[in-house]
């Protein structure tokens, strides 16, 4: 039996290098390249033994280390002017490591802040009414992420029974649903996303409604938008006749 394990400890070659530098308590400004290269390769071997997937990035770094190591073995080139110092072959790697370490530091600081939805909370934003559209306010078109997010919220709020068997009664098709949504939107001019799912009690019905919505967006029969970022998603009808035969479902 094959096991594939993904270790998150060394997310990349730089992570592993920083770990080795810390472990050996060596100076990042003066890395003993032979020692570190040797240990780096040992880790790669170990990862192979453990049947871990070694990403290409690790191999690239191994090649870089080998290159630096061989450069360090060479005597300084003869034609270099006296007094002029040779570039340390480790310089580029060192700078890269230092830069990466800085961002790790920032990441730690960010993590230690009081986070929204973890340590502190604001009121959950639910708009029950549809305020009049302000002519001056910029309208943001809702992205697919917003739609999927909104769908997730709908499903969460419905608190659907997870493991119950569904008895197939009369199931509505996406095509029928498209007609239904279109007429509702045209009648009311503007509806909010959540109201599409009112009265729907099974996951099947919700998914059909969502697919119908996506199809209507594709056909440019409706437009979904928000008045401000992460706000309520609203749906309006566009003045276009939809030819049912162009519908995919």
């Amino acid at each position, binding site marked *: 039996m094959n096991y594939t394990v993904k270790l998150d400890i060394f997310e990349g070659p730089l992570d592993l290098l920083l770990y080795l530098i810390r472990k050996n308590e060596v100076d990042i400004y003066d890395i003993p390249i032979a020692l570190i290269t040797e240990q780096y390769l040992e880790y790669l071997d170990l990862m192979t033994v453990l049947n871990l997937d070694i990403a290409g990035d690790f191999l690239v770094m191994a090649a870089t280390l080998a290159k630096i190591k061989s450069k360090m073995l060479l005597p300084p080139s003869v034609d270099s002017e006296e007094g002029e110092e040779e570039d340390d072959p480790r310089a580029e790697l060192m700078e890269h490591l230092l830069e990466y370490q800085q961002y790790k*530091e920032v990441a730690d600081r960010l993590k230690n*802040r009081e*986070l929204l939805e973890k340590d502190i*909370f604001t009121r959950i934003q639910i708009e029950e009414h549809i305020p009049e559209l302000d002519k001056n306010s910029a309208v943001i078109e809702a992205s697919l992420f917003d739609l999927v997010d909104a769908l997730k919220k709908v499903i969460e709020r419905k608190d659907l029974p997870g493991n119950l068997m569904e008895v197939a009664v009369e199931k509505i098709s996406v095509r029928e649903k498209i007609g239904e949504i279109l007429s509702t939107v045209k009648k009311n001019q503007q509806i909010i996303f959540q109201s599409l799912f009112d009265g729907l009690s099974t996951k099947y019905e919700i998914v059909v409604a969502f697919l119908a919505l996506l199809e209507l967006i594709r056909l440019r029969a409706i437009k979904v938008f928000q008045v401000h970022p992460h706000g309520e998603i609203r749906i309006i009808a566009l003045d276009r006749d939809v030819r049912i035969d162009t519908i995919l479902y």
Partner: protein
Amino acid sequence: MEQPNVHNEKAKYIIECLIFASEVPLTIEKIKDVLEDKSKKELKELVKELIEDYHNLERGIFIREVAHGYQFCTKPEYAQLIHKLRKSKPYHLTQPTLETLAIVAYKQPVTKAEVELVRGVDCTGVLKSLLEKKLITFQGRKDVLGRPFLYGTTSRFLEVFGLTDLSSLPSIEEIKQLKEADLPLLEQETQ
């Protein structure tokens, strides 16, 4: 005639209502739209007083300055109970996600390739998850070969991490100094 300080008290309560009723952090500009006769400076002063008032009272909520505005929040010590109420798990970001976010925050607008150069690993998945979490967003395309997407942080990022604006992130120089200050400490440990 109305006394000016009474008037100010009233204005303070109006501001309190406005912040409470706002869905997103409320900016001074928005408050000024309602309380037109007050200057921005006066309004800032009143908001400051209001924040202090909440600070001095033993309450479960407070007002914080975040994402260019002001917002009501629950106090951190009650986080557990809110999770109990909402049956939710604490918002969690993995180390790779945080690192990538840090790079985007400091280098924005930045391309995927530039982020990957710093981290030394593929960042496709992490960037996608940051986009889904609305912590970063597309900021156009870079005018180089292939016209790659540029990424930058959102105001949601400021809200989640409780930052007033991007300049309230510690500067890279500060981080460097911090690191150097750490070094002697490490040496002491090894001795």
